[in-house]
C-alpha cells in the first residue's frame, strides 16, 4: 500500500489535473447554475483553483527558475486572489440584493430584459 502510494506520489501533473478539474467544474457551474448566488459560488471554485495553482507553481517551479533568489510570489498572489475574491463577492452580493429587491428573482436566466 505504502509502496503503491509512494510510487504514485502526486507529481505536478497530478496537481494540475486536480486544479484544472476544479476550475472546469467551477466553469460549468458558472455557465449553468440558475441561482445568481450559485454562480458566485462556482466562481469561487474557479478562483480557488487558480489560487492553488499559484502556490503549486511557486512550490514546484519558481524557486529554481529564479536562479537562487527564493521568492514567495506565488504564495502571496494567493493571498491577493483571496482578497479579490472577497471583493467580488461583496460587490456581487450587493448587486444581487439590489437586484432581488427590484426584480424578486435570483434566477440569472430570467435576467433578460436587456437583449436584442
Amino acid at each position, binding site marked *: 500500500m505504502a509502496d503503491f502510494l509512494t510510487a504514485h506520489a502526486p507529481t505536478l501533473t497530478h496537481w494540475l489535473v486536480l486544479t484544472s478539474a476544479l476550475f472546469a467544474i467551477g*466553469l460549468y457551474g*458558472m*455557465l*449553468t447554475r440558475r441561482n445568481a448566488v450559485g*454562480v458566485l459560488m462556482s466562481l469561487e471554485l474557479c478562483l480557488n483553483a487558480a489560487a492553488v495553482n499559484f502556490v503549486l507553481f511557486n512550490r514546484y517551479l519558481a524557486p529554481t527558475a529564479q536562479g537562487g533568489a527564493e521568492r514567495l510570489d506565488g504564495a502571496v498572489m494567493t493571498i491577493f486572489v483571496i482578497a479579490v475574491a472577497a471583493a467580488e463577492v461583496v460587490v456581487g452580493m450587493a448587486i444581487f440584493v439590489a437586484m432581488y429587491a427590484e426584480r424578486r428573482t435570483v434566477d*440569472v*436566466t430570467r*435576467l*433578460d*430584459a*436587456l*437583449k*436584442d
Partner: protein
Amino acid sequence: MPPLSFILTHAWLIPAIPLLSFLLVGLVLRPVSQKLAGLVATLAVGTSAGLSWLLAWDFLHLVPHGQPLPALVPWSFQWLHFQENFAINLGTLLDPISVMLLVVVTTVSTLVHIYSTGYMHGEPGYARYFAFLNLFTFSMLGLVLAPNLVQMYVCWELVGASSFFLIGFYFEKPSAVSASKKAFIVTRFADLGFLLGILVIGFYAYQIHGAMAPDLLHGQQPLDFAFLTRPDVLARLAGLNVHFLGVGVLTLSAVLIYMGGAGKSAMFPLHIWLPDAMEGPTPVSALIHAATMVVAGVYLVARCFPIFATSGEALTVVMSIGAFTSLFAAVIGCTQDDIKRVLAFSTLSQLGYMMFALGVASFAHPLGYSASMFHLFTHAFFKALLFLGAGSVIHAVHSNDIWHMGGLRKHMPITHALFLIATLAIAGIYPLAGFFSKDEILAAALHSGHTVVFGVGLLVAGMTAFYMFRIYFVTFWGKPRSEHAAHPHESPWVMLAPMAFLGVLSIGAGFVPIPEWVQLPGAPVEHEGIDLAVAIPSTILALAGISLAWLLYGGAPERVDNLVKKLGGFYVAAKNKFYFDEFYLFVTHSVIFRFVAQPIAWFDRNIVDGLVNLGGWFARTAGLLLGKLQTGQVQTYGSWLVSGVIAVVFVLWGVLKSGGN
C-alpha cells in the same frame, strides 16, 4: 500664278458673314424686331453671294484659259491639336468644286432668303427661322470650304443640326417633330460611319505621315484632303496589308466615309428621312433638302474621289447604291400624292444619279466626276425652283396634296410658267439645264462601260419625266378639286422674283462650262460635248414619259385607277414607300427599344442595383442574425467567452504552425 486677290485670301468672309448674322439675329434682333431680323439675315447671305460670285470670277482667272484650275488653301489656322504631327487646321480650300458649290449655295440661299421673307410672313418664329437659315448657310459654306476631313465632319454635323431645327420649325406639330428627329438620327447613324472612316483613315494616314520626310509634307496634316489624295500616300494606304473582315484599310475607310455621305444624300437604305423632312417649311426644303445639304454626300465623295478611285471596290459600292437609289426613288415618286414628297423622291433619284455618275468615273474615265458635279450644279437650281414653285402653290392652296389642287395655271400664271420650266429642266428636255448634265452622266456611264447603269439611267430619265409631269398636270391642269384651289391667288413678288431668277438659271445653267472647269486632277480630259447616241434615246424616253403622264393625268382619271388595279400589290408597296419606314420603326421601337434599352434599364434597376441593395440587405440581415446572439442570457455569453479562449488557442496554434518559425 498671279498674287491672290483679296477675296481669294479672305474667302473665310463668305461663311463668316452668315455666322455673324446668325449670332446677331439670334441673340440681339430676334426679340427686338422680326422684320429687321429677316432683312439682316437676307442681306448677310446676299453679301456672301456677291462675294462668292466675285471669288468665282477671280478664281477662274487665276490661270490662263485652258489650264486646269488649281486647288489652294490660302487661309488656315490650327484649331485642334491632337498630338505631335496631328492637328486640325480650319481653313478654306479653294478648288473648282468648292468654288462652284460656294456659288450655288450662296445663290440659292440668297434666293430662298428673299422668298422666305414673303413665304414666312407673319409666322410666329419668323426671326428664329432666319437665324437658323443663316446658321445653315454658314455651316454649309464651312463644309464646302473644308480643307480636311475634320472640318468637313464638324460642318457636316452643324448642317445636320440646323436641318434638324428647320425641319422641326413647327415644333408644335407632332409630325414635324418626329420628322426632325428622324432626319437627325438617321443622318447621325450615317455620320457614325463617317466618324469611323475618319478614325480608320486618320490612324493609318498618321502612321504614313509620321514615316515621311518632313520636307515632303509641305506642312500638310494627316487628315488634310491634300495629304490624303496625294498619289504617294494613296499608294501606301492601298499597299497596307491590314484587313478587317477581308476588306483593306483603304476600301474600308472609303466605304465608311461613303456611309456618311450616303446618309446626308439619303441614299438607299438611309433615304427614309428625306421624304419626312418635307415637314419643314417649303423654302427650307428647297434650300436644304433639294439644293445644298443633300448634295453634301455627293460632294464628300467627290472630295475624296481619289481615295475611292484608288480603292475601286468602294467606287463600285457608290455606283451600285446610287443607281439603285435613283431607280427605287423614281418608282416611289410615281405613286406619291404629296407634291413635296414627289419632289423629295425626285431629289433622291437625282442624287442617285449624281452618285452613280461618280461611281462610274475613274482615273481612266474621269467624265463621270465632272458630270456628277455638273448635274449637282444644274439640279440645285431647277430643284430649288421646283420646291419654291411648290411652295408658292402650297401657299395658295394651303395643302400639299396634289389631288386638292388642279387648274392652277389660270390663277397662277407666273408660278405655272416657272414650274413648267423647272419640270422640263428636270425631265431633261433640250436646251434646259437638266438635259446637258444628265446627258453627260449617261454618256459617262456608257463610255466607261457600265451598260447596266446606263440602262438604269435611261429608264430613270424617262420615269423622271413621267412623274414630274404627273404632278405638273394634276396641279396645274384639269379642274380645281378643292375650295382653296378654286380661288387661289398668285404669290407676291418677293416670292416670284427669286423664282424667276432660278427660272433663268434653270434654263441657262446648262451652258455654263462646268465640265470644263471641273476636272479630276491628274486624269485626262474627257469632255465630248453632246453625244447624240445618248441624247436621242434619253430625249425620246423623256418625251415618252411626258406623253404617258398626259395620257394618264391630262384627262380622265379612271385610266389611272385601271392601271393601279392592274399593278396591284406593287403599286401599294411603292405607294407605301416599300414599307421601309415601318421596318425601321419596327427595328428601333420593337427591337432596339424593347429588347435592348428596356432590358438594360430593367437590368440596371433590378440586377445591378439589386446587387447593391443585396449588399445592404446582406449587411442588415447579418446584423440581425448576429444580433440574435445577444439573447440576454448571461451564461450564454459566458459560454461564448470560454469558447473564444479555445478558439484563440487554436487560431494561435494554427498561425504559429503555418506561418511562424
